[in-house]
């Protein structure tokens, strides 16, 4: 079976991996690069648990082939905290208890970070629409939305 040699940047580090065309970017992150923070939920692009940034765009890594990632810049949940220092979104998710089982949390954090980078002062409606591709079956979303909006306010210095 053909294997492809792929060079990419993951969380700022140059990485090389071999992958089969059947492997998704999600498979590569988890199984080849052992970055298991990114979760597999539906594997069909519906749930957002596998959300990562690909060249500055929020994507479902289950809908990207590993072989497509050549020369791309990928950011995952593992790149979000700086050492022991949590990203403000991570801290607010803890403060608000914006998670229960936690399975959707990495995807939600990556997606919320993408929102705040694009829109530092989002409305609640904008936030809910932006995060509509990230399903959470525990929280009912309200704590998540409040955590994101409060993080945005904090990051704006309010």
């Amino acid at each position, binding site marked *: 079976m053909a294997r492809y040699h792929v060079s990419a940047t993951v969380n700022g580090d140059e990485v090389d991996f071999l992958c089969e065309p059947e492997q998704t970017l999600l498979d590569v992150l988890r199984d080849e690069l052992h970055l298991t923070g990114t979760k597999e939920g539906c594997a069909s692009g519906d749930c957002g648990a596998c959300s990562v940034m690909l060249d500055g765009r929020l994507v479902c890594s289950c*809908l990207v082939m590993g072989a497509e990632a*050549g020369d791309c810049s990928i950011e995952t949940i593992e790149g979000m905290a700086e050492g022991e220092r949590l990203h403000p979104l991570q801290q607010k998710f803890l403060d608000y208890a914006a998670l229960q089982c936690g399975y959707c949390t990495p995807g939600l954090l990556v997606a919320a970070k993408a929102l705040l980078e694009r829109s530092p002062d989002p409305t609640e409606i904008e936030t809910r629409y932006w995060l509509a591709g990230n399903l959470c079956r525990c929280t009912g979303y309200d704590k998540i939305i409040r955590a994101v909006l409060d993080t945005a306010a904090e990051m704006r210095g309010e």
Partner: protein
Amino acid sequence: MRYEAPETMEAAVALLASDDNARVLAGGTDLLVQLRADTIDPSLVVDVKKIDAMRTVTAEDGGFRVGAAVTGAELGEHEEFKSVWPGVVEALELIGSTQIQSRATMGGNLCNASPAADSVPAMIAAGAIATIEGPNGSRDIPVEDVATGPGRTSLRKGELVASFLFPEQAPRTGDAYLRFIPRTEMDIAVVGAGVCLTLDESGLCTAARVSLGAVAALALVPDEAADALMGTSVDEAALARLSEVASAAAKPIDDKRGTKEFRIQVTGVMARRAAEIALARAKGK
């Protein structure tokens, strides 16, 4: 399965022509789902995203040429295109989540050939032309001639949809797309309606195109729906007539997302409301 990512159209066409079981990969939001579900088993996947012409929006003869692999997010950020063709952009942006918008393309939406594809009725209403590249060169066909049935297209071996031409728009032209879904977003159209109309200086409709989605095996382009608007000021009588003939043109199926009877009724409502938005936009130009 082999993966190739050619950088030229010629190379992509040669690869597609070399393998009877090749598939084009654009955004992958349908293809990877089908691979995962084992509904397709291609021996070759040709990724077209490294071909510049398929990823860019350019001016052409007063109109726009949009690469077939331009994503929903990219087209939505193209202010100039969006100001001219808001209906096309809103149709494309209705597809899926933020994550899906980062990847999904109009070429993919068209060639996946779902009867419920949102961008397709909007493109048809806009009069968009698909430019197809293949082993025998390039050919242009109306968007409505690409899909031939659910999951089937008129593309021949080695061919791919390379780009769409949105021709120069006449003054006082407006377009709009609406769909009905039972929730606020992230769903598949139960009924979709795209309308594009042009007014003369006195406010009479001199050109109209209406396309209906999810109510037949293919997006419909009923002439009688356009005729209901032509020559009118798109007044109440014209809108009532449009609603009636759009419903009459619908040939939907019953499924879990809507009954046949419901879809027929809603087709008229969607067509009418889309026409009202298109009218307001035409008046604003």
